[in-house]
């Protein structure tokens, strides 16, 4: 037992002495939370609009005013012709242009909206918002924010995230990414480093049991991962005002399974890799990239081709992120995440077994 603690202390010292890595490990979640919470949004805001003035009159002017006064659009320029407006959009001076043409007899003006379609999603949203504002009856001059462009006659209720804050979506994903990174990548690198430097030989020949060596190495990273988990949860709750709707016990419980899974993966990598560089690249390629790309963190899994959906089904973080979204944001009970928990648990058991069987007590 004394050996075990001295091991844990040694490992903790390694972590604490490398200030820069520590700074990054705790700086990263804080930075990501702030960026996703405040900076990165897909809200329609400050869309740079050009007004084509060729056929303007008082009525259309009023509509343009409405547009300008909304927080969604900013009029950045006026252009004489549509052609000129298009040029402005092409050189990224504007995103959208509106032009009025003489309407049908007696009716209102006919609007033509030109929108930069490079980003299809945003283009569509801009157009929808602009349409809604322009189509508002002239009578209701009072500029109401178009909370209704989406509803029009139908009652729309956005569940769990009524303000559509992207933080709700990203907090679980950040947890999935960072826990994997800290546990798998750091553990594997720290084991491989001992191999590379030659200290592993001494550790193996010492009376300490190899399994104890490995477990003792994992403990500080486990604690580090918990520290990061706490930082993320606290920031989510108090800085980003993301509700922790579900039971905290289960959130931590499922995270624990996931952390164990990540440790097993790290151990597996360390028994395959011979140099730090390989361990680093393997964890980056095999763990980090798929987590970011295929787990539904940034890009929805449903929109991928079937083959990639299958690949994504093999990614542990996908289940963790999905479970966390349900537990944390939607506030469901354990019953709803039973599938995810079952998959995670069986993956953990599988990888842990393979890692322990594969762990080498001798050199190659």
């Amino acid at each position, binding site marked *: 037992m004394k*050996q075990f603690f001295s091991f844990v202390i*040694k490992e903790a010292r390694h972590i604490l002495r490398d200030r820069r890595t520590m700074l990054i490990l705790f700086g990263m979640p804080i930075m990501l939370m702030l960026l996703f919470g405040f900076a990165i949004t897909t809200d329609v805001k400050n869309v740079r609009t050009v007004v084509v003035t060729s056929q303007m009159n008082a009525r259309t002017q009023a509509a343009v005013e409405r547009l300008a006064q909304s927080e969604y659009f900013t009029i950045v320029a006026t252009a004489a012709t549509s052609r000129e407006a298009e040029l402005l959009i092409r050189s990224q001076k504007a995103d959208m242009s509106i032009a009025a043409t003489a309407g049908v007899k007696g009716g209102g003006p006919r609007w033509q909206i030109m929108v930069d379609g490079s980003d299809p999603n945003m283009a569509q949203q801009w157009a929808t918002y602009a349409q809604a504002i322009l189509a508002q009856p002239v009578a209701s001059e009072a500029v109401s924010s178009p909370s209704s462009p989406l509803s029009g006659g139908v009652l729309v209720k956005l569940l769990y995230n009524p303000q559509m804050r992207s933080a709700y979506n990203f907090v679980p994903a950040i947890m999935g990414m960072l826990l994997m990174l800290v546990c798998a990548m750091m553990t594997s690198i720290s084991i491989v480093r001992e191999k590379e430097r030659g*200290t592993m*030989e*001494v550790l193996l*020949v010492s*009376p300490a049991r190899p399994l104890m060596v490995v477990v003792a190495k994992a403990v500080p990273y486990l604690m580090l991962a918990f520290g990061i988990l706490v930082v993320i949860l606290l920031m989510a709750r108090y800085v980003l005002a993301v509700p922790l709707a579900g039971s905290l016990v289960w959130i931590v419980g499922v995270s624990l399974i996931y952390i164990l899974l990540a440790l097993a993966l790290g151990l597996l990598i360390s028994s395959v890799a011979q140099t730090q560089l390989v361990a680093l690249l393997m964890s980056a390629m095999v763990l980090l990239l798929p987590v970011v790309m295929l787990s539904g963190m940034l890009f929805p899994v449903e929109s991928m081709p079937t083959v990639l959906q299958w690949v994504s089904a093999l990614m542990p973080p996908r289940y963790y992120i999905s479970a966390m979204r349900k537990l944390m944001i939607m506030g469901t009970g354990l019953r709803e995440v039973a599938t995810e928990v079952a998959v995670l648990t069986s993956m953990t058991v599988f990888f842990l077994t393979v890692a322990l069987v594969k762990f080498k007590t*001798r*050199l190659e």
Partner: protein
Amino acid sequence: MNAIEVNHISKSYGKRVKALTDVSFTVGKGEVFGIIGPDGAGKTSLFRILCTLLLPDSGTALVDGFDVVGQMREIRRRVGYMPGRFSLYQDLTVAENLQFFATLFGTTVDEGYESIKAIYSQIERFSDRKAGALSGGMKQKLALSCALVHSPSVLFLDEPTTGVDPVSRKELWEMLLSLKERGITIVASTPYLDEVRCCDRVAFLSEGVVKGIGKPDEILEQFKDVFNPAGIDKVAESEPSANDSESDNVIEVSHLVKAFGTFRAVDDISFTVKRGEIFGFLGANGAGKTTAMHMLTGLNQPTSGTGRVCGFDIRTEYEQIKRHIGYMSQRFSLYEDLTVAENIRLFAGIYGMKDAEIRTKTERLLQRLDFATHADDLVASLPLGWKQKLAFSVSIFHEPGVVFLDEPTGGVDPATRRQFWELIYDAAQRGITVFVTTHYMDEAEYCDRISIMVDGKISALGTPSELKRRYDQPDMDHVFTYLARQATRSSD
């Protein structure tokens, strides 16, 4: 009862490399057994098999009565092992390293203190310093302390004294012999002949085959062409003549100081080196040799004092100095992933040599070194001795005024060391000044003049015969020991 019994062990890596072939020997309890032989003889593989780190392809071995294949756990509980490439945890302090290894072996620093006192007391002063900040020889001493802090029944040491100064090596062996009295069996490999003579019996291993086992003197006699190559005939010792003009000084140093905080690594040294001289720069581990050399080669700025190398100020004109010197560092520093020819071409190109010139000189060099067939081999695949010869040849390829060699022959076997010194003489004759540090005292005898650094100061300077006369000692080894034992500050 025998502590170790090795029966017909063979081991090969892949199909081509045979590391060990049918190796058999026994070691009695409480014996000090030496394993000697050139690089690549299979010493490290043998150690690893005995420590249960590798599985032999065939044959059996018993350590302390337990089988290395089947009873791994029993053996690991009873042996101590210090690998040749033992590296400490660089980011832990000296004390933390020692404490960690003590706990790992199930003992405490206090309990094991007696057995490591001789070595550890020298570094104890720096117990709060990180291991990564220690000098090369110091790290080795700490590693030894870590390996010896417990008292196993069998101790395996794979070249434990590489880079350790002669005084400390003597102290280490005195310590090992005291362990022997406590009944601990010791198996060690070493390239130093004086250490070989400390063993009870030695096995000479060459190309994976045991060529002979016996008393050290018998083996050294039997294979004397390997271990005791005839000394080099020194070109008539050029006693410095009085009429040498000032301009003939290639290196002039006066009152040079380098301080790290309050610690003065180099403390007010002054000396001159003449053109074509072989200048031996000796000193115990951490006496400040490497730091002084870094200042002379323009890697470090001096704290105070002046120095000129090839007529350029080391403080301001260090980039010009670099044009006129060659340097070979303690760590082997050619590019391992380039071939022999590519390394030569790269460094020649860096010094601005023309393509045609490079080609003809490369050919000549490879011929002289007998490397012609290995021109396209990766440097990583060469044995250590070859690498060192190559690194030296590369460092003088551009005909520099001075070449600085920092422990160029550490861990190299005697025969190869001799060849290395032939190259040095060759260079000196062509007018290249050689500035060399070494821990081999036989090499010190080869130098024209030597200085011995103690505690950052130069405490003796002169030709080897002068120094022997002055301190009334039979050979350089004794001169060195006499001076180094006067050190007040422990090496760092």
